[in-house]
Protein backbone atom coordinates (compact mmCIF):
# COMPACT_ATOMS: atom_id res chain seq x y z
CA UNK A 1 0.00 0.00 0.00
CA UNK A 2 2.81 2.38 0.87
CA UNK A 3 4.52 1.85 -2.48
CA UNK A 4 1.24 2.54 -4.25
CA UNK A 5 0.84 5.76 -2.28
CA UNK A 6 4.34 6.92 -3.21
CA UNK A 7 3.88 6.14 -6.91
CA UNK A 8 0.48 7.82 -6.85
CA UNK A 9 1.95 10.98 -5.20
CA UNK A 10 4.72 11.13 -7.80
CA UNK A 11 2.19 10.86 -10.63
CA UNK A 12 -0.06 13.51 -9.07
CA UNK A 13 2.80 15.97 -8.54
CA UNK A 14 4.12 15.37 -12.06
CA UNK A 15 0.64 16.11 -13.42
CA UNK A 16 0.40 19.30 -11.37
CA UNK A 17 3.85 20.35 -12.60
CA UNK A 18 2.74 19.98 -16.22
CA UNK A 19 -0.45 21.88 -15.46
CA UNK A 20 1.51 24.78 -13.99
CA UNK A 21 3.90 24.90 -16.95
CA UNK A 22 0.88 24.98 -19.26
CA UNK A 23 -0.62 27.89 -17.34
CA UNK A 24 2.69 29.80 -17.52
CA UNK A 25 2.96 29.01 -21.24
CA UNK A 26 -0.48 30.50 -21.73
CA UNK A 27 1.00 33.86 -20.72
CA UNK A 28 4.53 33.60 -22.06
CA UNK A 29 4.34 32.24 -25.60
CA UNK A 30 4.59 34.80 -28.43
CA UNK A 31 1.64 34.00 -30.74
CA UNK A 32 -1.76 32.40 -30.49
CA UNK A 33 -0.97 29.03 -32.06
CA UNK A 34 1.98 28.39 -29.77
CA UNK A 35 -0.28 29.24 -26.87
CA UNK A 36 -2.75 26.61 -28.08
CA UNK A 37 0.16 24.17 -28.17
CA UNK A 38 1.15 25.02 -24.59
CA UNK A 39 -2.38 24.74 -23.26
CA UNK A 40 -3.44 21.60 -25.10
CA UNK A 41 -0.32 19.44 -24.81
CA UNK A 42 0.25 20.14 -21.13
CA UNK A 43 -3.48 19.78 -20.60
CA UNK A 44 -3.60 16.26 -21.98
CA UNK A 45 -0.45 15.05 -20.18
CA UNK A 46 -1.65 16.59 -16.90
CA UNK A 47 -4.98 14.79 -17.27
CA UNK A 48 -3.25 11.46 -17.94
CA UNK A 49 -0.90 11.79 -14.98
CA UNK A 50 -3.44 13.04 -12.42
CA UNK A 51 -6.10 10.50 -13.37
CA UNK A 52 -3.46 7.72 -13.25
CA UNK A 53 -2.45 8.94 -9.81
CA UNK A 54 -6.06 8.73 -8.65
CA UNK A 55 -6.51 5.33 -10.34
CA UNK A 56 -3.82 3.87 -8.09
CA UNK A 57 -5.88 4.97 -5.07
CA UNK A 58 -8.95 2.95 -6.04
CA UNK A 59 -9.76 -0.60 -5.25
CA UNK A 60 -10.82 -2.30 -8.47
CA UNK A 61 -14.44 -1.16 -8.43
CA UNK A 62 -16.91 1.26 -9.99
CA UNK A 63 -14.70 4.28 -9.28
CA UNK A 64 -11.99 2.78 -11.49
CA UNK A 65 -14.45 2.60 -14.35
CA UNK A 66 -15.57 6.18 -13.73
CA UNK A 67 -11.99 7.46 -13.70
CA UNK A 68 -11.20 5.53 -16.88
CA UNK A 69 -14.31 7.01 -18.48
CA UNK A 70 -13.22 10.55 -17.50
CA UNK A 71 -9.74 9.86 -18.90
CA UNK A 72 -11.12 8.46 -22.18
CA UNK A 73 -13.57 11.30 -22.56
CA UNK A 74 -11.00 14.03 -21.90
CA UNK A 75 -8.52 12.34 -24.24
CA UNK A 76 -11.13 12.58 -27.01
CA UNK A 77 -12.51 16.04 -26.29
CA UNK A 78 -9.35 17.97 -25.40
CA UNK A 79 -7.63 17.58 -28.81
CA UNK A 80 -10.97 18.13 -30.56
CA UNK A 81 -11.53 21.39 -28.73
CA UNK A 82 -7.95 22.52 -29.46
CA UNK A 83 -8.36 21.70 -33.13
CA UNK A 84 -11.69 23.52 -33.36
CA UNK A 85 -10.19 26.53 -31.57
CA UNK A 86 -7.16 26.74 -33.88
CA UNK A 87 -9.37 26.28 -36.94
CA UNK A 88 -11.80 28.99 -35.93
CA UNK A 89 -8.90 31.33 -35.07
CA UNK A 90 -7.47 30.69 -38.53
CA UNK A 91 -10.85 31.50 -40.09
CA UNK A 92 -10.99 34.58 -37.91
CA UNK A 93 -7.77 35.79 -39.54
CA UNK A 94 -5.19 35.25 -36.82
CA UNK A 95 -1.62 34.97 -38.17
CA UNK A 96 1.35 33.06 -36.83
CA UNK A 97 4.34 35.04 -35.62
CA UNK A 98 6.33 34.38 -38.84
CA UNK A 99 3.43 35.41 -41.05
CA UNK A 100 2.78 38.64 -39.19
CA UNK A 101 6.50 39.51 -39.41
CA UNK A 102 6.44 38.81 -43.15
CA UNK A 103 3.37 40.98 -43.55
CA UNK A 104 5.03 43.83 -41.68
CA UNK A 105 8.13 43.54 -43.89
CA UNK A 106 6.03 43.65 -47.06
CA UNK A 107 4.23 46.75 -45.79
CA UNK A 108 7.55 48.43 -45.08
CA UNK A 109 8.87 47.51 -48.53
CA UNK A 110 5.76 48.97 -50.13
CA UNK A 111 6.18 52.19 -48.18
CA UNK A 112 9.87 52.37 -49.13
CA UNK A 113 8.95 51.78 -52.81
CA UNK A 114 6.51 54.67 -52.77
Amino acid at each position, binding site marked *: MLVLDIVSSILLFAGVFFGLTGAVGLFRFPDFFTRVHA*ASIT*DSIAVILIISGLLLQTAFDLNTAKLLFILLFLMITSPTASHA*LAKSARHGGLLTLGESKQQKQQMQQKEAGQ
Partner: protein
Amino acid sequence: MTAVFSAVCIAILVVMALALARAMKAPTVYDRILGVNMFGTKTVLFIAVIGYLMGRPEFLDIAIVYALINFIGMVAVLRYFEYTAPTE
Protein backbone atom coordinates in the same frame (compact mmCIF):
# COMPACT_ATOMS: atom_id res chain seq x y z
CA MET B 1 -2.24 10.93 1.42
CA THR B 2 -4.44 13.79 2.70
CA ALA B 3 -1.49 16.20 2.60
CA VAL B 4 -0.68 15.16 -0.97
CA PHE B 5 -4.29 15.59 -2.08
CA SER B 6 -4.48 19.02 -0.37
CA ALA B 7 -1.28 20.17 -2.08
CA VAL B 8 -2.53 18.94 -5.46
CA CYS B 9 -5.88 20.70 -4.89
CA ILE B 10 -4.16 24.00 -4.08
CA ALA B 11 -1.86 23.70 -7.10
CA ILE B 12 -4.80 22.99 -9.41
CA LEU B 13 -6.58 26.01 -7.92
CA VAL B 14 -3.52 28.12 -8.79
CA VAL B 15 -3.62 26.82 -12.37
CA MET B 16 -7.34 27.60 -12.53
CA ALA B 17 -6.71 31.13 -11.25
CA LEU B 18 -4.04 31.68 -13.92
CA ALA B 19 -6.37 30.38 -16.66
CA LEU B 20 -9.16 32.64 -15.40
CA ALA B 21 -6.80 35.63 -15.34
CA ARG B 22 -5.93 34.82 -18.94
CA ALA B 23 -9.61 34.61 -19.82
CA MET B 24 -10.23 38.03 -18.25
CA LYS B 25 -7.32 39.83 -19.86
CA ALA B 26 -6.12 38.61 -23.26
CA PRO B 27 -5.28 40.19 -26.63
CA THR B 28 -7.85 38.28 -28.74
CA VAL B 29 -11.18 36.60 -28.11
CA TYR B 30 -9.62 33.23 -29.02
CA ASP B 31 -7.14 33.58 -26.19
CA ARG B 32 -10.05 34.11 -23.85
CA ILE B 33 -11.76 30.96 -25.11
CA LEU B 34 -8.47 29.08 -24.67
CA GLY B 35 -8.32 30.24 -21.05
CA VAL B 36 -11.93 29.21 -20.43
CA ASN B 37 -11.28 25.78 -22.00
CA MET B 38 -8.26 25.22 -19.77
CA PHE B 39 -10.28 26.37 -16.76
CA GLY B 40 -12.96 23.79 -17.57
CA THR B 41 -10.51 20.90 -17.97
CA LYS B 42 -8.79 21.78 -14.72
CA THR B 43 -12.17 22.01 -12.98
CA VAL B 44 -12.86 18.38 -13.92
CA LEU B 45 -9.51 17.35 -12.41
CA PHE B 46 -10.13 19.50 -9.34
CA ILE B 47 -13.52 17.91 -8.65
CA ALA B 48 -12.01 14.42 -9.06
CA VAL B 49 -9.11 15.15 -6.68
CA ILE B 50 -11.27 16.89 -4.08
CA GLY B 51 -13.58 13.86 -4.07
CA TYR B 52 -10.63 11.74 -2.94
CA LEU B 53 -9.50 14.43 -0.48
CA MET B 54 -12.91 14.37 1.23
CA GLY B 55 -13.16 10.59 1.01
CA ARG B 56 -16.24 10.81 -1.20
CA PRO B 57 -15.38 9.36 -4.62
CA GLU B 58 -19.03 9.87 -5.69
CA PHE B 59 -17.84 13.31 -6.80
CA LEU B 60 -16.53 11.57 -9.92
CA ASP B 61 -20.07 11.58 -11.32
CA ILE B 62 -20.08 15.38 -11.11
CA ALA B 63 -16.69 15.45 -12.83
CA ILE B 64 -18.04 13.36 -15.72
CA VAL B 65 -21.05 15.67 -16.12
CA TYR B 66 -18.79 18.71 -15.98
CA ALA B 67 -16.51 17.29 -18.69
CA LEU B 68 -19.53 16.72 -20.97
CA ILE B 69 -20.96 20.21 -20.40
CA ASN B 70 -17.55 21.83 -20.88
CA PHE B 71 -17.02 20.18 -24.25
CA ILE B 72 -20.51 21.00 -25.55
CA GLY B 73 -20.15 24.61 -24.40
CA MET B 74 -16.75 24.94 -26.10
CA VAL B 75 -18.03 23.65 -29.43
CA ALA B 76 -21.10 25.88 -29.25
CA VAL B 77 -19.06 29.03 -28.58
CA LEU B 78 -16.56 28.16 -31.32
CA ARG B 79 -19.34 27.53 -33.83
CA TYR B 80 -20.63 31.00 -33.03
CA PHE B 81 -17.25 32.70 -33.42
CA GLU B 82 -15.91 30.73 -36.39
CA TYR B 83 -17.24 32.97 -39.16
CA THR B 84 -18.12 36.17 -37.34
CA ALA B 85 -14.41 37.06 -36.96
CA PRO B 86 -14.44 39.45 -34.00
CA THR B 87 -11.35 41.56 -33.50
CA GLU B 88 -10.62 43.58 -30.39
